[in-house]
């Protein structure tokens, strides 16, 4: 248990991932589904970024001309998260455009409703 308290960032990111996951599966509304997806992504980034942190060290940018690996935190997770954020904003834009297009065709944001309407139209 105490380890969970020490690893509180990881624990929180797991909870956030779970919440995002639930939103993705449970929400009928497409916009909230995609917000859930974003929460899921940021949760993973939080997890990854927490792996790079080292207590009492500074950000990986040369300060006071010190070139020493024991002075800075790990730069690898930050780079990976940076890449990840770009990917997730691209996906968000794409999915929101898709939501607009779906609304234009069906006039609703409710996924179940859209599925039903699409099946009805297909049956015609």
């Amino acid at each position: 248990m105490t380890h969970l308290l020490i690893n509180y960032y990881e624990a929180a990111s797991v909870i956030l991932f779970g919440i995002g996951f639930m939103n993705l599966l449970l929400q009928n509304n497409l916009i909230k589904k995609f917000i859930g997806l974003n929460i899921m992504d940021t949760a993973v980034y939080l997890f990854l970024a927490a792996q790079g942190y080292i207590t009492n060290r500074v950000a990986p940018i040369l300060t006071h001309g010190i070139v020493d690996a024991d002075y800075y935190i790990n730069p690898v997770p930050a780079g990976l998260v940076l890449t990840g954020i770009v990917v997730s904003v691209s996906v968000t834009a794409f999915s929101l455009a898709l939501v607009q297009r779906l609304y234009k065709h069906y006039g609703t944001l409710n996924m179940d409703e859209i599925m039903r309407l699409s099946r009805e139209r297909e049956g015609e």
Partner: protein
Amino acid sequence: MHKKNTFLQKLKAWVNGEDTLLHADEYIAKRKQPQPKQWLRSPSVEKIKSNRALYSFLCVLVAMVFITIMMVVVSELPTFGNASNPGNNEVMERYLEKGIEETGAINFVAGMILDYRAFDTFGESNVLFLAVICVLMLLRRDSKNISAAEEKEIAEDEALDAVDHKSILQVGAKYLSPVIILYGIYVILNGHLSPGGGFSGGSIVGGGLILYAAAFGHQSVQRFLNFRTFTWISVGCLLTYFACKSYSFFTGANHVGYTIPKGIPGHILSAGFILPLNICVGLIVACTMYGFYALFTKGDI
């Protein structure tokens, strides 16, 4: 007996084409009526979804199980902030200790993503490019994506824009957007010296453009950024990026000469390819962000 030869009947129906039936729908409706294999019908996703309460309960259950398992995992993972964790190994040491002499960037993260692991970053900028193409495919007006109601809405919005003075927004945007764009350019140009870089600076510039467009209308931005310039800037920057990275990958992998001056670390003109790459990424991202805004509001750039 009737139940046993349903399949044979079906086969016969297929082969004979059931010409007695004039309409296929009737035929299909009739064919679907006998459902002897009830036990084979596993609860399909749609059916579970129709039973909302059960579905919600299952989802919550799955999420809870997931969270519990992950909590156990987290409690066994390396301690947060500990210097002897597996991640803090020789890889990180080289990035930090030799980074400046090998890449010339004093922002180690920039050096890492644009030089050591540049292939990932190349993929990432392609993701952005593909996303804007997807949004173009989805939202740009064409014969399949047009409706009278929406045309009317856009016309109404434009009419409203023409009458509405938006004084507060316009005064704010007049003074703020140049500052925001300038700050974005600063972040892009100092990507190898300070936090930031092409992506963050580009989105700041894009934000400035969005503010400007929101206050003064699309026409004002279209004077210098129409669809043609948009395509040329994106493709041109991506090609520059592509050329720089192909050159560096090719020379690196084949151990042939690579003579890009690194400059003096800490100066603005240093770090080899990192500065031009940051500028390229910044331009792409700024265009992309504005492009998203324009496509989302009026369906064209």
